[in-house]
């Protein structure tokens, strides 16, 4: 039986993850990674849940771990996660125009990084280790090398089109 709360969170999934990691305090990071994989972010309610269920932890401690690491997101991510590399190599080869083009294309004004329809989310990362392909953009794990402002627009528009037809 899945337990649905008002926030629409399926806690039975969290229970499964916790059980798989034996409710161990030392597995907290792995648990959070798994939760993020399933829910696409770390909802506050789930962090509270984990902090209460695992012995030796508290909600505030879990929150501390989640905010310490850049890999964890406390805001919902989009169905398509766009990562723009802004490491040194990508930066000098023009990652900023690419980033700005994406922002413009998705209508993301300052401070917002997920589109209103939750289809896309945008973040910059420091280095993807693919400097030879700079500037690099990664969308849901798929690498797009040597991007330009025009090229990334085509990529995004293609995804949007596919999504529309899929529905």
């Amino acid at each position, binding site marked *: 039986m899945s337990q649905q*709360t008002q*926030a629409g*969170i399926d806690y039975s999934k969290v229970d499964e993850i916790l059980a798989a990691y034996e409710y161990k305090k030392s597995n907290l990071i792995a648990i959070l990674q798994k939760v993020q994989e399933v829910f696409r972010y770390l909802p*506050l309610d789930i962090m509270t849940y984990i902090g*209460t269920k695992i012995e030796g932890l508290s909600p*505030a*401690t879990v*929150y*501390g771990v989640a905010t310490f690491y850049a890999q964890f997101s406390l805001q919902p991510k989009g169905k398509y996660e766009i990562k723009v590399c802004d490491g040194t190599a990508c930066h000098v080869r023009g990652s900023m125009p690419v980033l700005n083009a994406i922002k413009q294309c998705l209508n993301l004004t300052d401070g917002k990084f997920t589109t209103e329809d939750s289809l896309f989310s945008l973040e910059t990362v420091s280095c993807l280790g693919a400097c030879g392909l700079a500037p690099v953009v990664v969308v849901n794990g798929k690498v797009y090398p040597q991007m330009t402002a025009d090229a990334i627009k085509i990529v995004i528009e293609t995804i949007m089109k596919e999504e529309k037809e899929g529905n």
Partner: protein
Amino acid sequence: MSDKKTLIINGKEVEFTDEPNLLEVIRKAGFNVPTFCYRPDLTQYGACRMCVVEVEYPNGRTIINSSCTMPPEANIKVKTNTERTRRIRKTVLELLLANHDRECTTCDKSGKCELQQYAEEYGIKDVSKYVQLRKDRYLPIDDSNPSIVRDPNKCILCGACVRACAEFQGHAVLGFANRGSKTVVQPIAGKPLGSVDCVFCGQCQAVCPTGALTIKNEVNPVWSLITDPNKKVAAQIAPSVRVAIGEEFGLEPGANTIGLINAALKEIGFDLVFDTNFSADLTIMEEAHEFVERVSKGENLPLFTSCCPAWVRYLELQHPDMLNHLSSCKSPQGMLSMVLRELVPKYFEGFTPENLNIVSIMPCTAKKAEAKREQLQKDGKYETDYVLTTQELAKMIKSAGIDFKSLEPVEGDSPFAQYTGAGTIFGASGGVAEAAVRTAYEFVTGEPLSDLDIKGMRGVDKNHRCKDVEIDIKGTKVKVRVVSTLKEAEKSLQEIKNGTADFHMLEVMACPGGCINGGGQPRSCDDTHIKEKRAQGLYKEDSELQYRRSNDNPDIKKLYAEYLEAPGSHKAHELLHTAYEDKFKGSYKDVVKA
């Protein structure tokens, strides 16, 4: 061990044995190093780097290390005060001060702040070369909590509060969040401290070196009450205040100053002064009766004591399914306020239910929250109007210009002036259980207990946070467990839930060592012996008093004869007992299913 282990500190040969770190050895040798984050009762953390020392190994290698995290080693040479260590400490202080709200004069910790103290000792006069914390970037002060005020602009991130919350109470309400220069100490997601599972024990602010966490100061409204000619104010003083407040005036920890406190309160302008020890006796009468009743019926065992408001709140928040174990007795504060409300207008001229105000002097920050409980209201009015901590009373005495030490001791006001040793020892962990057993024994057997000192229940240090004692009541073995800190209490609760618990009574005090080490007491976090001395002060008074069983107290007997009928009577229930509420639901973590 035949060979003694020694090391050299500042040229002096010092012996050491099992000290956990170099800092303890340094202090034992009569030297000192500054520290913000080291607290002997908490784990070592090494955050502040103020306790750095120069260490020279026998092979000539010299290092700088924080003495709080370094285990003592034989034959090393330690220098605590060198050019290098001074330079490091000064830089630490300068950086902390640059990033600190330096409005010292209006800070509640002013005069007791370690940052202020060291900045003065190390002669820090100018920190303008560093980037300053800008006023327009100040974070809001959080005063949503009934007992504690949090000012994040004064936090130096030493983490003492986070450790105190986790290691004493087992459920860290405060935690670090974010990383690097954005790091803050806060409740989850920056929620107000009043809206999370805080139990109000105040241990976080007791270990806080700065004004980041302070007691919610209620001195000013109390002064207004006292100076209002249309109002009458009665005070009550908790057991453990008497053995601690003297420290604020240069007396030794453990010195019994009840006479001086009574005198000071009268001098300040309180109309009547009563002793919470009296109602501690009353609590024992009710609780021992309740205990005997539960044992004979075999229901709702083990009985949990209900004197500690942090513990009561913890149960309400975390284990509402176990509230049936909790004694229905009000805490001594609640009982005395109720008795005073009922009887003071009858006994004293000029006092009416309308003009009577009650202020209690407590070692405890959680009592402030207890006084505001819905269940402790009568006719829409709180039974206790204000709760002042020991520290706040000391401030009042100082501001009134009273020379505390040279006061002439006076007695409390009758008819509730007499108290027994059983009431006094409420202030130390184990005291409530010891007092209850002394009286319960007589309730069951009809004979007084011969040996009143139940040594197994005593002890307030780190190694005495869980004590099991078996009492033989004429063939019936009664097992009592005494715990201090909620972390220990949680272990006992789990035993009960697993069915492995083997005790009939559980005494819980949330502060380590009990009320003598309460969150409202004068500072005691750097020296573990202070709380032991305070406890000795209470046990000394107990051993010297004429009456040492609550049921022998003549004023208590009179109160029952004239007014309350008998322990557990209808009247007693109406006035002295209370109810609890399931706060698990509606808590911010109501997502958690049992």
